[in-house]
């Protein structure tokens, strides 16, 4: 009887969910997801759990960000624990709620991160040249061609007899793709696996 329970328990485990949870445990410690550099003048690396800003090689830190990102790390660690528990005890009534909560802690920061970067770039690229340029104390025009998420571009500033060209480079890191993989696996575990492969619950919530 006991061994049958063990077999049932193992059979009911949502394995993709457990793997997603394990990956989620790693993600906050893998560093930044995305980076942008303006020549060698400004270097910014970001993720919802990590940031690094270097201006002329000097590191700049924002105290509030340090605390907020610490909270984000704790939240995703808590979320991954919830997802692992929810996926292990897949047949329990509370597993769905716990898994959804846990998965959301990586899914929503990822979506929010990507969308906000796209919106920010779209806004800058859409700004008319007039807004970026100034006439006082001397005429200065700025022409920006910034890639949306990854790629290279150029910001050109013209002032009187001088022109400054600063190349922009945006790139994703390995941590971004590991997170993307974790999210894809998580979506599979939440949507596809539960409906097709995983244990089905009847109206009373049992298998």
């Amino acid at each position, binding site marked *: 009887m006991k061994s049958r329970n063990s077999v049932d328990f193992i059979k009911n485990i949502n394995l993709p969910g457990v793997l997603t949870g394990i990956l989620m445990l790693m993600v906050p410690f893998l560093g930044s997801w995305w980076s942008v550099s303006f020549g060698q003048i400004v270097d910014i690396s970001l993720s919802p759990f990590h940031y690094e800003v270097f201006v002329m090689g000097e590191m700049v830190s924002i105290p509030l960000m340090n605390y907020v990102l610490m909270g984000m790390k704790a939240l995703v660690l808590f979320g991954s624990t919830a997802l692992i528990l929810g996926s292990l005890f897949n047949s329990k009534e509370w597993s769905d709620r716990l898994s959804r*909560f846990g998965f959301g802690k990586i899914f929503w920061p990822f979506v929010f991160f990507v969308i906000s970067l796209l919106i920010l770039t779209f806004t800058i690229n859409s700004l008319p040249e007039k807004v970026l340029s100034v006439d006082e104390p001397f005429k200065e025009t700025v022409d920006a061609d910034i890639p949306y998420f990854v790629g290279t571009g150029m910001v050109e500033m013209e002032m009187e007899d001088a022109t400054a060209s600063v190349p922009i480079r945006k790139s994703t890191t390995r941590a971004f793709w590991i997170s993307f993989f974790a999210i894809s696996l998580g979506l599979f575990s939440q949507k596809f696996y539960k409906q097709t492969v995983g244990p089905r619950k009847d109206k009373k919530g049992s298998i």
Partner: protein
Amino acid sequence: MKGRSLSLVLFVLTAVLLLGPVVFALSSHNWNIEEAVVPRDEEMRSIERSMMDIQDPGNFDIIEEDMDHGTGSFDIYMEFDSSVDFDVFLNEFRGEVHTNGENMCDLSLAEKPVFFEGGEKTSFKITGNLDRGTVEPNQPDILPHGAYDDNYNMEFVNVSVEIEMLGMTLYFEGIQGGGFV
């Protein structure tokens, strides 16, 4: 009921982990938002210092000049003493030297680009050729010593400089100025 309690616990925990750090950050900075958001003074000062370096990366000196009085061609040996810790490339340097309003010679880099290693002294050469119609080539010491002589009323005209540093390219065109250095 159990489900609702679980949801409530998860919601409260999320709120605490999101808002708690903000409250903690503000409380540890005397509830001063500016203090919590703006980078520290030391960081800002070191950035300012670095910005100053871009504006003044070092000094140029004339070391030696060599002139062929027969042909009118001359070389000016210069030295750049870098005071910054980043490298600078001088990709282009072109200009005209006018005396009393007339073009006396064109100047350009003998070899380009010139690589100025950060914190080091680098020598490089500027070449030119005197316009025979304007100045007698056999006139001794016309350049660069003669350049200091106000009687020649010398000035740089149409100077173009292209500098590359810290990944950015700076191009100056049409610079004018009196005096040789």
